[in-house]
């Protein structure tokens, strides 16, 4: 960025990615360095205080029941996430990648999907998995070390988690190219993070999708950090603006506003399904937890930053709106809390009781049909294992 950003009268830098990047400033996420006084580029329909606001291009009209359902989604996925983090701390999971703070981005995007759509997650999209009807235990198994994800990616229309950063964006584009070729009615929703935007694969996915007009929506959760590296280590411009260089629209949405995310993602998916090609959505949010349970964010960010983002909590703002507008009462919230606790208790119980996989299962599915050499190895392995159990029984 060659220009020195000017301070505006609100007292924050118009460029949130400048040298003094301060994601907790009064309103940096509304800033656009190209037109700092013009209409905000951030789409928001619900303020952090829970006030419903209108946007000139995006609107949403949900019934009280629909709003309550969104609240339920948000609360339940957070409760499972908290439980999983606790289970890891107690040694029941090898690792856990928390979605804390990103619930609205994931539920808003997940609930925008229609049955024919296909989602391609990273390893943190527990909220989207929830929306696709995947039981939390199918995800827990992966982090416990029992399998690679127990759900059926074809049936659930939710691909397996992808840990190699950004690789799945190309799979989404390829799948979308397949939809173009077999008369599919859906679109693909490709998830990735701010760090992934530096990967070659993500940029190649942008290019392929644009060139082939593939029905895909790129959903980037900018949670401000790629493990320890803040967003300015990845980019000099707001991420949503990358799209223009590839020739398709980019839009930044308040990722902690479930209504705005839902509205924006719905619109982008509709455009993709109707042959208008890709859109890049940057959901501006914050990773309130560590990268994973193996990470220690106190080494690279201030606690005060977290405190400021807590004021923008995605669940609290919907709760405030529901209460303020009289669309949910105390009994509703109590019922959700009870349901959350029951779900968490089930997750805990089923995690602790989850059996280890059959050791010989590691040989399964390496190929469609086991090769003779692998069969030999499998037989040798079983004989070797059996030797130990004989020794044990003789002891």
């Amino acid at each position, binding site marked *: 960025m060659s220009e020195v950003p000017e301070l505006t009268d609100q007292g924050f830098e118009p460029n949130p990615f400048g040298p003094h990047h301060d994601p907790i400033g009064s309103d940096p996420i509304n800033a656009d360095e190209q037109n700092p006084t013009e209409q905000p580029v951030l789409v928001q329909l619900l303020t952090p205080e829970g006030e419903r606001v209108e946007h000139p291009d995006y609107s949403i009209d949900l019934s009280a029941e629909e709003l309550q359902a969104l609240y339920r989604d948000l609360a339940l996925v957070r409760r499972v996430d908290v439980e999983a983090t606790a289970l890891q701390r107690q040694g029941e999971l090898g690792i856990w990648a928390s979605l804390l703070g990103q619930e609205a981005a994931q539920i808003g995007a997940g609930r925008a999907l229609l049955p024919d759509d296909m989602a391609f997650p990273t390893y943190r999209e527990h909220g989207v998995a929830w929306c696709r009807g995947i039981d939390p235990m199918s995800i827990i198994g992966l982090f416990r070390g029992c399998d690679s994800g127990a759900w059926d990616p074809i049936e659930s229309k939710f691909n397996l988690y992808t840990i190699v950063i950004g690789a799945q964006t190309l799979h*989404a584009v390829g799948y979308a190219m397949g*939809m173009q070729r077999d008369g599919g009615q859906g679109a693909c929703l490709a998830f990735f993070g701010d760090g992934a935007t530096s990967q070659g694969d993500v940029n190649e996915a942008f290019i392929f999708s644009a060139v082939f007009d593939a029905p895909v929506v790129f959903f980037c959760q900018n949670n401000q950090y790629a493990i320890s590296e803040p967003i300015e280590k990845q980019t000099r411009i707001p991420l949503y603006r990358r799209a223009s260089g590839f020739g398709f629209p980019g839009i930044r949405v308040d990722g902690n506003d479930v209504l705005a995310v839902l509205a924006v993602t719905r619109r982008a998916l509709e455009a993709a399904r109707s042959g208008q090609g890709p859109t890049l959505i940057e959901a501006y949010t914050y990773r309130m937890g560590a990268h994973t349970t193996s990470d220690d964010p106190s080494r690279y960010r201030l606690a005060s930053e977290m405190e400021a983002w807590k004021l923008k909590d995605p669940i609290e703002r919907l709760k405030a709106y529901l209460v303020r507008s009289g669309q949910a009462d105390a009994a509703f919230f109590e019922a959700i809390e009870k349901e959350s606790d029951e779900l968490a208790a089930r997750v805990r119980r089923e995690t602790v009781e989850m059996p280890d996989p059959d050791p010989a299962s590691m040989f399964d*599915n390496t190929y469609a049909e086991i090769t003779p050499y692998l069969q030999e190895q499998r037989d040798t392995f079983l004989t070797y294992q059996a030797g130990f159990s004989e020794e044990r029984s003789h002891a």
Partner: protein
Amino acid sequence: MSTTVTLGKALNMGLRKAMEDDPKVLLMGEDIGKLGGVFRITDGLQKDFGEDRVIDTPLAESGILGTAVGLAMRGFRPVVEIQFDGFVYPAYDQIVCQVAKLHARSRGRLPMSIVIRIPFGGGIGAVEHHSESPEAYFAHTAGLKVVACSNPVDAYWMIQQAIAHPDPIVFFEPKRRYWEKAELDTEAPPEPLFGSRLVREGSQVTVLAYGPMVKTALQAASAAEEEGISVEVLDLRTISPLDMGPVLESVRRTGRCVVVHEAPSNLGLGAELSARITEACFYDLEAPVLRVGGYDTPYPPSKLEEDYLPDLDRVLEAVDRSLAY
């Protein structure tokens, strides 16, 4: 019907047949459509099958493989062309981390019927990155299968068999043999894809080769015969999984084995073959298994490639060394 065709034309015919047989077969790659590929292997296919099935892709190998993964998940059978051996590395991550593993990771739910065609090997006087033999990288990766054709008849059948096969296959084409001709009978029944084949009978030394080195091995066997040495030659055809049955049967008879490939010897296929032969035929061996390969250097400038590549004389020299034990 029997016709005389080049290896390149046989591949073209095989691809055409596979596309006719299965509408889910797609070709993807750089310059494969209008141009027909830099070696013309896909010549005329876009014209006949359309741009949706013969796809000129952006110039991005990882993008080609990554989108092929998505297409395979959707039930297509992508056949991707990597323009030259040395250009496959940008796609290496997608091949090793995604293509190779997704069938196992998904417990068999995600089909990964992808064929990755790679013209490989040297001998055409090319600039750097155009003459490499990277097959060991892929053979080392569980979940992938790796094959190499050596002649027009195999090229025609093996490409079709690879496309119809459920597992991902890296399909190596001996680029310097693209112009070799043979009689092709498209009615004759093909041999199985994952089988090695005895191509010349002999009694004193077994020579193992695949891809472009099969011809070299056969030339060496002819030259050896003039010196009164009887050399048996096997075309491995499948590099992973290896078809060891015919190999072990041959080595047990001859007691001596020489493995020939263009790839560097260090940790190449010769090392694996040597280990497996030694494990299975220890008491039958009259000499250690010897390797003739490229040197452990970057592929040299083309004026030096004749010195780098195994040739008839280097194979004969190894045969002599084996007999001297």
